[in-house]
């Protein structure tokens, strides 16, 4: 009995450990490239800070996707719910301050989620169809309401509302300074980690911390509580859950509402922290990217965190420093070659060769040029996603009943 207990823990630990290892190797690789190409900007605290800000909305959307899909509902309406969130954040912050604003963002996102839930759960509409409609409606409602309401506000206009108060920022004095000192040494690895700590402890928005905390909360709730077990069972086999007394509709509803609220919070982050105002179209497809980050992360909290960070990092890096993107090529090339070697070691010859060819190509690109054309840097997040999915899609495992229709009384 005890052996099995140990074994069980082992599985959980192995999973989280493998993410840890991948993370550590990733940092080591970037650190290595930073030193040999002498682009300290790659992991400067400012870069990481920007990356965190770029990550948060994507992360919130990805978490939203996770909740819905773990309960078996595909939520491609994240984008629309996020847009509703930006409007909600603006409206409620304007009247009641930032924290009510965040609640307002969550509320508006939740309303979008409710619409999706009614359509998909109660009426059994195809999940993607409903999501597309919600994206249309979300964008329309936000634009329309902004024009109708914000035009008369101070700092407002038909398409924007500026000067919103931001949620508080915090700095942890001792840690922040110490981390900065270490980061400034530009040591291998240590300084990179220190820069990360510095970014996380200096003038960081409480909303960022909240969103990162929500990753942990989601992981614990979904995987360590009976509520989470029931919710996940609805995504794996709702009929079975029903026969065991789980009210599948209720859990799916809860999950999709939470999903919408999280996407809404992501929108709120854009309006309150990433900038200080609402403007129409400011989500710019981040809801879709969040969905991609979740798939990238194999429907797991740790994975989607990694996915969101990858997007956030590449996107903010290209805005700050196009030169660093060139160094990033080296990171990619080394990473691919290492992956190819690992595959070869695992005797997956064909896969190894493909990856190696791509790796060599990227390496050649790095060596033969000294800048990435600006246009291409814009594509970085998208191309990265395609690459990662192409290399790893077969390992992905989505919840078994994800996207499937379910009706009560269909068990048996």
């Amino acid at each position, binding site marked *: 009995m005890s052996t099995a207990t140990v074994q069980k823990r082992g599985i959980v630990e192995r999973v989280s450990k493998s993410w840890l290892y991948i993370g550590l190797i990733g940092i080591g690789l970037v650190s290595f490239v930073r030193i040999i190409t002498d682009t300290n900007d790659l992991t*400067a605290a*400012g*870069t990481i*800070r*920007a990356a965190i*800000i*770029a990550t948060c*909305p994507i992360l919130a959307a990805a978490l939203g996707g996770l909740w819905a899909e773990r309960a078996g509902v595909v939520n491609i309406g994240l984008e629309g719910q996020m847009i509703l969130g930006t409007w909600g954040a603006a409206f409620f912050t*304007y*009247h009641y301050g930032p924290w009510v604003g965040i609640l307002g963002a969550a509320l508006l996102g939740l309303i979008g989620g409710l619409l999706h839930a009614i359509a998909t759960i109660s009426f059994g509409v195809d999940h993607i169809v409903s999501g597309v409609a919600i994206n249309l409606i979300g964008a329309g409602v936000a634009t329309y309401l902004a*024009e*109708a*309401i914000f*035009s*008369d*506000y*101070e*700092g*407002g*206009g*038909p*398409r*924007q509302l*500026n*000067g919103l108060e931001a949620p508080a920022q915090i700095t942890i004095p001792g840690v922040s300074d110490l981390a900065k000192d270490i980061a400034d040494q530009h040591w291998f690895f240590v300084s990179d980690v220190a820069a990360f700590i510095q970014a996380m402890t200096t*003038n960081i928005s409480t909303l960022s911390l909240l969103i990162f905390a929500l990753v942990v909360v989601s992981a614990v709730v979904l995987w360590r509580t009976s509520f989470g077990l029931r919710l996940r069972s609805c995504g794996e086999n709702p009929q079975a859950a029903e026969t065991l007394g789980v009210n599948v509709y209720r859990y799916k509803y809860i999950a999709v509402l939470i999903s919408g609220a999280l996407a809404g919070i992501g929108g709120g982050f*854009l309006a309150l922290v*990433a*900038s*200080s*105002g609402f*403007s*129409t*179209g*400011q989500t*710019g497809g981040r809801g879709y990217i969040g969905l991609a980050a979740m798939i990238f992360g194999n429907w797991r909290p740790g994975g989607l965190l990694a996915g969101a960070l990858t997007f956030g990092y590449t996107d*903010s890096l290209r*805005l*700050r*420093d196009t030169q660093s993107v060139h160094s990033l090529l080296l990171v990619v090339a080394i990473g691919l070659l290492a992956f190819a070697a690992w595959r070869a070691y695992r005797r997956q010859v064909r896969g190894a060769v493909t990856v190696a060819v791509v790796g060599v190509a990227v390496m050649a690109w790095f060596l033969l040029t000294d800048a990435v054309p*600006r*246009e291409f840097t*814009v594509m970085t997040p998208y191309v990265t996603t395609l690459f990662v999915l192409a290399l790893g899609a077969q390992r992905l495992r989505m919840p078994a009943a994800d996207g499937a229709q379910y009706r009560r009384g269909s068990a048996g």
Partner: protein
Amino acid sequence: GGSDSEGGSGKDKKAASDDVCKTADGDGPKIGLAYDVGGRGDRSFNDSAYAGVEKAVADFDATCIEGEATDDEAESAREDRLRNMAENGATAIIGVGFAYSESVNAVAPDFPEVNFAVVDGFDPDDKANDNVAYLGFAEEQGSFLVGVAAATKSKSGTIGFVGGVNNDLIQKFEAGYTAGAKAAKPDIKVEVAYIQESDLSGFGDPAGGKAAATGEFDKGADVVYHAAGGSGSGVFDAAVEAGEGNWAIGVDSDQYLTATAAQKPFILTSMLKRVDTASYDFVKSVNDGKPLTSFQVYDLKADGVGYSTANPEIKDLQADIDGYKAKIVDGEIKDIPTKP
């Protein structure tokens, strides 16, 4: 909406629904104002055109009608907007934004007695229209001046530029700005970032503007100029976050006046692109019976571009800047580049 909602009515900001086009009923010329996406209330371009028309309405006892572009609209929708105005009796029709160039070109021949103007526009074919004015601006000249301001104000020796979309128009701003900065301080370093390369969403992404500007402040810049439309608000936020001693420069209209209370002290100046002047001039010319046609360049000399002095912080630089301004107007400084 038409509701006279009280929510947060500002002191200096007129509610957008106080609409001169709804209230005016004089018997002067009838003006048609076709906005670009964003419409009136965008605190930039469109508002500036409206300001010119508002003044014209007052001065010439004119009336006006408005129409506004929507996202992703068809070319025919723009044409229809212009035709509607012409059919409703407008005699001076202004298309705000170069996106109206094609549609004005198509509509103008059908209404020879109506005068058209396209802000930033161009004639897309080789047949000249004798009832269309193309109102162009020497953005590089205005940008040159704020470049001087930025370089003079900078203590760190590094300044920044954030463009919304990396196209020819915005590159003009960058080029003029850099030239002005180098003229004032030859060893100045200019950090340049564009939010998007071609996707027009770069003008509506404050988060991107803030990230780009923050990157420049992080690299030591202490003055950042933006030509990024709606994303500019993010640039101002970045300056606020960078703290005292750091500045942002606005664009198109005097953004010191429309910025939020927190941003205001950080907006050193703005490059003014006097769409209001141009619009007013155009209406005036129609009213005077000598309608402007063909290419009209609004440069420093014509007061079509300039810089704002609303922020007292600019006072001690004004002499310097005006010196350059004089040189440009005199032609002493010429060939300001329009390409970086």
